[in-house]
């Protein structure tokens, strides 16, 4: 009995590890579909709309990669993952890439054997409380009950923050954002803490968003970005440069409105190389020449994706802040396409 259980686990691990070593790019092409891990539902980042189609800021990255590789931004199978299941899903090969508000950390990159291909949102951890509590700083939260998603970096930051400020709290560990929202709104916890972007997105779905405040303290750095398995560099390059293409497109002024015009050829050689009218960048990636054009055509450039899903004119209402182009004082800086 004991033996067979252990063997079962090993079969599982064996198969899992076996699946992980194959060439993902060829797999995706052969399958004709990209398996992309996303959240279980965080409006603005990844959630199914009324027609059951996934949309959001992270979803747009998946769609851009699918468009770059397969020429079809709808050739994506979205796999909802929780904070806890996401890494197993990626390591086991169930998904080809993960775009789920995931923080790039040393141990995830080095020890967990993943490869973060970039950052699509520079974030930090914040706290949300109901306005009626009258709390104005996170340091006043001594003794509070805090809802926290397990399996996240935010869980660790939370422990450190309260420890270093010498105040106590009662953690309520929760699996998904939806459960956290339920407990928070029912008053089973005083505070909800996670990435500030996630707080804004969660608050946007409340009946009374104005009744809740996000406290001024940002207690951590949370660079969120898409990731792939470590070791498959060809595939890592494809995802990395698809993301870079979206960022570069904004910098170079390529939008969904002028994309087809620019793809006919321009005076700017970098635009030409990016859109495939000059040079062989696509071929070097193992993709077609118009890969970046397809990626941008999917949902627009980075700025358009931001504005449409989480920008200031949406209910989520996030300002560009750190996520502006480097030319605008932000941190977005795509390496040159040459």
């Amino acid at each position, binding site marked *: 009995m*004991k*033996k067979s*259980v*252990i*063997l079962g*686990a*090993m*079969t599982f*691990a*064996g198969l*899992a*590890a*076996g699946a*992980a*070593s194959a060439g993902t790019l060829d797999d995706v092409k052969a399958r004709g579909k990209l398996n992309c891990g996303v959240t279980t539902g965080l409006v603005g980042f990844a959630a199914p709309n009324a027609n059951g189609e996934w949309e959001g800021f992270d979803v747009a990255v998946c769609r851009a990669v699918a468009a770059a590789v397969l020429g079809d931004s709808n050739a994506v199978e979205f796999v909802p993952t929780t*904070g*806890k299941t996401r*890494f*197993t899903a990626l*390591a086991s090969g169930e998904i080809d890439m993960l775009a789920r508000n995931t923080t790039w950390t040393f*141990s*995830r990159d080095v*020890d*967990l*054997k993943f490869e973060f291909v970039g950052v699509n949102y520079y974030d930090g951890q914040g706290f949300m409380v109901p306005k009626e*509590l009258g709390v104005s700083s996170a340091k006043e*939260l*001594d*003794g*509070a*009950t805090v809802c926290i998603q*397990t*399996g996240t970096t935010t*869980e*660790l930051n*939370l*422990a*450190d923050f*309260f*420890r270093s400020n010498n105040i106590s*709290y*009662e*953690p*309520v*560990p*929760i*699996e998904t954002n939806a459960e956290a929202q*339920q*407990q928070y709104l*029912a*008053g*089973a*916890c*005083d505070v909800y803490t996670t990435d500030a972007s996630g707080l804004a997105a969660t608050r946007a779905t409340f009946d009374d968003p104005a009744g809740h405040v996000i406290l001024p303290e940002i207690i951590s750095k949370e660079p969120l970005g898409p990731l792939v398995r*470590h*070791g498959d560099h060809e595939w890592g390059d494809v995802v990395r440069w698809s993301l870079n293409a979206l960022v570069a497109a904004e910098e170079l002024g390529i939008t969904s409105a002028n994309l087809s015009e620019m793809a006919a050829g321009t005076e700017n050689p970098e635009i030409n190389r990016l859109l495939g009218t000059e040079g062989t960048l696509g071929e070097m990636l193992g993709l077609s020449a118009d890969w970046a054009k397809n990626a941008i055509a999917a949902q627009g450039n980075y700025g358009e994706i931001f504005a449409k899903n989480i920008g200031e004119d949406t209910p989520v209402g996030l300002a560009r802040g750190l996520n502006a182009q480097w030319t605008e004082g932000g941190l977005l800086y795509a390496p040159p396409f040459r």
Partner: protein
Amino acid sequence: MSTLTDPPKEQFRLSMLLYDTRYRSGTIQVIAMFGFMLLAAWLINNTLSNLAALGKPIDFGFFSEPASYDINQRLLEYTSRDTHLRAALMGLLNTLVVAVLGCITATVLGVIIGVLRLSSNWLVARLMTIYVEMFRNVPVLLWIVFVMAILIETLPAPSAFRGESPEATMSLMDSVAVTNRGVYIPEPLFSRSLGDIHLLGQSSLRFDVSLDLIAILVVLGLSLWAAHRVTLRANRIQEATGDRPKTWHVRTAIIVGPMLVLLIALGFHLGYPALKGFNFQGGTHLRNSLIALWLALSLYTAAFIAEIVRAGIMAISKGQTEAASALGLRSNRIMRLVILPQALRVIIPPLISNYLNLTKNSSLAIAVGYMDITGTLGGITMNQTGRELECVLLLMLVYLAISLSISAVMNWYNEAVKLKER
């Protein structure tokens, strides 16, 4: 004189391994065994080489690293700077707490419901049938989530207890607070406490033993022993003289007296919960995750135990009851002295497997955020360290050990009550 010769010894031939029924089953077993070992070797080899290729060879070193996460319900002292091993220990204790509470409650409920289901009162019997069918036929996970949702949505938040005319008030003479974060009950405190002894130094498995508790247990044990001596003496007097002296007041005094003196000496008093800041402080906090899990597991398992109890009672032939009443026994004595001891023999083996099920089902704890061993070792630790294989293997060993211990205890009990054949 002619001698009987043995039949000629048949020469052993290789084909006999297959065609001779004397050897065939042995051959098959050897081949199967060989195949199994081959498969096992292949799996282990495959796993190890794949893990090595991934750069993640099996390594339990992470156990001594700081866990870095907090655990809300901890039976021993623990901070986020403690090791993953200690975090796993907290989880293990939480698993045991809910398993023990669940088994006790499920047994009590199950016996009551099982007996009532045999009641001659039509309504009571039908209600119990509905109970059993309702709980048995809905997955336990749904019950756990359902109970939790009810606790969260229907009970008042601590803030409702605040203000001049609060919406909610504490119950039982202001000693118990029922909130949607759990139930706060009074806790025993000692103002002249004897303190604790710290065992195992600074290691991850260190724990404190309360000297107050030891004192209480020792005094209780001694008084019970003394009370027992009084009973024995009464027996002797009864045998010698035919008269049994009244002993109950002596025995009560022996048990209650020293305990009272001890409690007063230790300065025993109750600490009541009181609303302070965001939450109730003081008292013992039974978190709603614990209550939801405990309640759902008990109600669910009680339905199965009720059926086992009913089957056990019905398995005893009616003649036993009739014979006993012919001897002049009253009906509750018939149940206690004749039916139940026999029914227990039928009840205990399936009861063991229900205890095991309850314990294993407690791993659904994460659905309500209860930090059991699956939530700590198999949840956060596994997630933060990425040591899936190591954590899952250990987790299986832990559950195996718990299950085997329960089985051992129950088998021993079964042995004690089973039919003695002489």
